[in-house]
């Protein structure tokens, strides 16, 4: 294979691996929009908060990073449950302003709270020797173990959530609530509780995203909003239909970013945005839209 082609192949592979991470950012956002039509502007900051939670456990409590990650997942679930149950449920209704403005306020509070608690220093999760391992794919292309694992994690998370949605009683209740909240209540489904569980799941996924974000790149308290934007782009590009669509959307944004960066390193983020805008103009409902709305 010609060397130039290999370079581009490598670029696309790196983009798909990056897209896996973006899909992890996006899954929670997609989930809560699907179930309660809530757009959480603090989503990115909650991912960063989870990364700091893992960091705090690993550095200050001296726990192994993997164990800290395992602790963070249920902690974030509980946080999401409580946040929705006692704060965000009160914002839901016909008017879109209260949820938007309350989550925007939350975003600013989390960012500045993290700045206060952890300073503006750039951090990285300590994962020891794992960070250096790379897997050769042949032809001189090699991929890092963490990027590979983050894509695997995205696939596992989406598979797991789909099992939950399509194979369990809770999943049925979640889908029924997503279809029609009022009628779901006529089935004895407590929608407030369902919303809280959905937010719990979304933040548990945020913890997974945070682990891979923090172990493959650096983060600081102000990096949340950019994660929200990548997540949002992946959701819209994928279409509001399925989590697999969200994964595809993540790939589109990831590949656009690595291809852009290959042309000019300064164009990485811009290329992702441009890809998003092009999809929005050509296919406003994304690649895998819902069959009904």
């Amino acid at each position, binding site marked *: 294979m010609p060397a130039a082609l290999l370079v581009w192949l490598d670029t696309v592979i790196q983009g798909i691996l990056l897209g896996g991470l973006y899909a992890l950012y996006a899954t929670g956002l997609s989930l809560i929009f699907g179930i309660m039509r809530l757009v959480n502007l603090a989503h990115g900051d909650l991912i960063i908060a989870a990364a700091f939670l893992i960091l705090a456990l690993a550095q200050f409590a001296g726990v192994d990073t993997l164990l800290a990650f395992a602790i963070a997942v249920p902690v974030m679930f509980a946080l999401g449950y409580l946040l929705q149950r006692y704060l965000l449920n009160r914002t839901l209704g016909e008017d*879109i302003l209260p949820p938007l403005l309350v989550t925007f306020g*939350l975003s*600013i509070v989390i960012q500045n709270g993290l700045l206060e608690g952890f300073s503006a220093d750039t951090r990285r999760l300590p994962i020891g020797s794992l960070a250096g391992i790379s897997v050769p794919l042949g032809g001189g292309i090699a991929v890092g173990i963490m990027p590979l694992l983050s894509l695997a994690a995205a696939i596992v998370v989406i598979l797991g959530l789909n099992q939950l949605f399509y194979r369990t009683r809770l999943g049925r209740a979640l889908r029924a609530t997503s279809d029609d909240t009022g009628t779901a209540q006529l089935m004895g489904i407590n929608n407030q509780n369902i919303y809280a569980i959905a937010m719990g799941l979304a933040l548990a996924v945020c913890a997974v995203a945070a682990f891979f974000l923090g172990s493959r790149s650096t983060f600081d308290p102000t990096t949340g909003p950019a994660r929200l934007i990548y997540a949002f782009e992946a959701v819209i590009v994928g279409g509001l239909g399925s989590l697999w669509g969200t994964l595809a959307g993540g790939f589109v944004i990831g590949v656009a970013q690595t291809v852009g960066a290959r042309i000019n390193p*300064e164009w990485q983020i811009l290329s992702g945005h441009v890809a998003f805008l092009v999809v929005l103009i050509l296919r406003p409902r994304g690649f895998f839209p819902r069959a009904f709305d």
Partner: protein
Amino acid sequence: MTVASSASPPPFTATHGMAIRFTAFALVAAALLFLPIFAGRALLQNLFFVFTMLSLAQYWNLLAGYAGLVSVGQQAFVGLGAYALFAAALIAGLDPLLGILIGGVVAAILALPTALVVFRLRGAYFAIGTWVAAEVFRLVLAQFKTTLGGGTGTSLGPDITNQMFGLKWIAATFDVRTPAARDIAVYWLALALLLGTMALVYLLLRSRRGLALAAIRDSEAAAVSLGVDSFRTRLAIYVIAAFGTGMVGALIYLQKARVSPDAAFSVTDWTAYVIFIVVIGGIGTIEGPIVGAIVLYFLQDYLAHFGTWYLITLGTLAAAVMLVAPKGLWGLFAQRFDVHVFPVRRHLTISGTEEFESKPD
């Protein structure tokens, strides 16, 4: 665009006490106009901050509080206005005063293609879409390296700012040095923009189109069936808000005399504070943002040296207001005492059967 023509008669019932209100309003405006005779530079600089933030807040309120367009990307137009002024002054060598107008025009022109993209997103997704648009403008402007300094930005030298139209007259009249004259000049410009903004928003909301806005906000489906062209009305409001926001942005950065993409397109500085002003003061009223700007100003005095705590307090306060008193501080006050300084409330009776109220209360 003729949106709020003063020639069109008030279509519905007149409000009382208008003469008294306008007299009081004119007195306050006159007092602020002559303030530079007595006031020191610090007060003028503080008021410059309050006036520009309040103008931004009025435009955001017009979008979110009246047209239902909840944008978190208005920093796009602050930044575009600022960069248009810098480009006009640095590249074309134009007077910065003209640059302010150019800032508004450039923002309005670029608002059109932006709207065509972000209007494809509904409701809450529109909000993040506007944010993406602002990021795109920020990243694109960072690419202009030789002319506008790229990512690190550029500044307006004294050779440009000191040549601004009218500065010599101010320096001579007030018998001050050029930096102090510049403070007075930008203070007057901020005051003029604020008064213009308030007049524009007031007339807009009292016009037939203002009524259409209230109808859209209250129910898009109902408004469409009443024949309100919602897309065109929203587009008009979006472009008007971009024009005003662009002019304010240009003025803010004329005063700072230094611009960079990260600062001019900052979501915290140009959108978060603005949203907090409107929400805390009271969304959907003209008075609300005024109250909010005053609260922001005093909180800043008390909390500025706590840095991050200032934003934490504002964010918490705004969220709490949204949950507990969605009409804000002004809403609480107006409800308690039934006061309206800028009444835009009117009743429209259709076929004598249904009544629509054009005022959020």
